[in-house]
């Protein structure tokens, strides 16, 4: 499957410990015990993981990773993130569930990502502290509606045209009712300048992994088709196209900007990617996708560097890329 609107795929498993109360509670000692247990086991089995316990450290994560924190994560108690950057694996501890195991990769890799989180789950399984499970309802979540296999497959999608035409809400409602899928903004704050959205399954009760994969992939494919149709009409089939004007304006602004705060950058990046997807710009979709990494401050944070200089560094990096150069942190997603 190759669909221009899809940036990345992710597989996630939700797990809770049987003997501990679920996360939305205030007993710091119990939350800390669960965190220690999870991280000790993880580092014993997978020493390559790097643990980020302080909320300030999470800001250094790539932009795609911070989207899953869904805002307000810094207010959570005894939460932690562990990351294996090489393998693109992430473990969230005490963020809603005791454990959320995630693997991210290219859109075509979704089945592989499922098997990788299952492997990780196997390493974290501990007979002394089993995961909460019931014969009837599968693995138990803090939200009973989410119990089941605990598998969530999601795609990060760029849907500027459907968003511009205010089609996201009706599509989300239809998908929730008809296909058991969820369509939500990838930006936690409610402001979504990048027009990035996350498509995933709503629940996993009674569903095999393959069913979950097929349902989410099918919905993502439909969205991609609709977005592609609208993109084609807006950019390539309309003689005096306002959308095409926006694309070129964004390209010009990014090529010459001296200062790019993250919000401004995401808004311009969205138009740039629209142009790249439509083949209207001298920029490949792959390059445009890789530029999303520059939205996160972590891409520019250096030892002792003043955070106030980040918007300037971002602008420098973007100018270099769009004029044919490169940037040290510029990698493919």
């Amino acid at each position, binding site marked *: 499957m190759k669909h221009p609107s899809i940036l990345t795929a992710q597989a996630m498993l939700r797990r809770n410990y049987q003997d501990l109360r679920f996360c939305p509670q*205030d007993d710091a000692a119990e939350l800390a015990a669960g965190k220690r247990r999870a991280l000790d086991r993880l580092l014993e089995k997978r020493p390559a993981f790097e643990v980020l316990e302080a909320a300030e450290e999470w800001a250094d994560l790539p932009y795609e990773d911070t989207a899953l924190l869904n805002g307000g994560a810094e207010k959570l108690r005894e939460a932690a993130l562990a990351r294996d950057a090489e393998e693109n694996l992430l473990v969230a501890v005490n963020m809603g569930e005791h454990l959320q195991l995630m693997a991210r990769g290219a859109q075509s890799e979704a089945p592989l990502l499922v098997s990788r989180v299952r492997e990780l789950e196997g390493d974290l399984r501990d007979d002394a502290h089993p995961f909460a499970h019931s014969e009837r309802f599968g693995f138990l979540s803090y939200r009973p509606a989410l119990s089941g296999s605990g598998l969530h497959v999601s795609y990060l999608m760029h849907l500027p045209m459907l968003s511009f*035409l205010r089609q996201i809400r*009706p599509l989300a409602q239809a998908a929730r009712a008809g296909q058991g899928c969820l369509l939500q903004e990838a930006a936690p704050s409610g402001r979504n300048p990048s027009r990035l959205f996350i498509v995933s399954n709503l629940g996993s009760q009674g569903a095999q992994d393959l069913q979950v994969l097929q349902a989410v992939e099918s919905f993502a494919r439909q969205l991609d088709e609709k977005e592609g149709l609208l993109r084609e009409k807006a950019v390539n089939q309309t003689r005096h196209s306002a959308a095409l004007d926006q694309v070129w304006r964004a390209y010009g602004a990014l090529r010459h900007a001296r200062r790019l705060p993250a919000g401004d950058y995401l808004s311009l990046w969205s138009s740039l990617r629209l142009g790249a997807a439509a083949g209207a710009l001298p920029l490949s979709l792959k390059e445009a996708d890789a530029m999303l990494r520059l939205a996160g401050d972590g891409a520019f944070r250096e030892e002792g560097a003043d955070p106030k200089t980040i918007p300037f560094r971002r602008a420098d990096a973007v100018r270099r890329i769009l004029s044919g150069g490169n940037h040290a942190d510029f990698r493919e997603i």
Partner: protein
Amino acid sequence: MICEVCRQRDADIVFKTVTGGQVATRAMCMKCAQNMQQEMMKMFVALGFKPEQVSGVHQEETSEAALPKPEMPRFLCAHCGRPYDRLDEHTMAGCAHCYEAMAEDLAAQFAPDTAPKAADSHGSVRGGHDELNLRLMEAVIREDFELAARLRDQLRTRDQEGPAE
């Protein structure tokens, strides 16, 4: 700002809670706030408090009809103390034992046809996204607002006549 409980609706209010000397704020939508308030009131009533004590309103100051009258919850988890009345998608379980209280409702909710489904063979997403709607979007893109208005009126008429098959 998004509600920190359901993480779906917009937050309407911000709660401040003090636990162990630490002040924490939580942004919530009205529905989650109401659910949380009801759960807390039920928990207090289950512990032997009177409704007027829980609500913090003196009985002589307020008419009886205006006072909330929480009933005892159907279940109270003996392990974590979380009350449980009914199941919806925002219901939260406090621990694995809570599932025993919810078992019947959960079994009803998780009927075999609730698993995620792939789209039909035509690949269509329902909910008004048919040909007419697509033509409307196309007209908006082309900035042909006269045509867009006509199509919008047609859609409205069709919606008033009844939902599409």
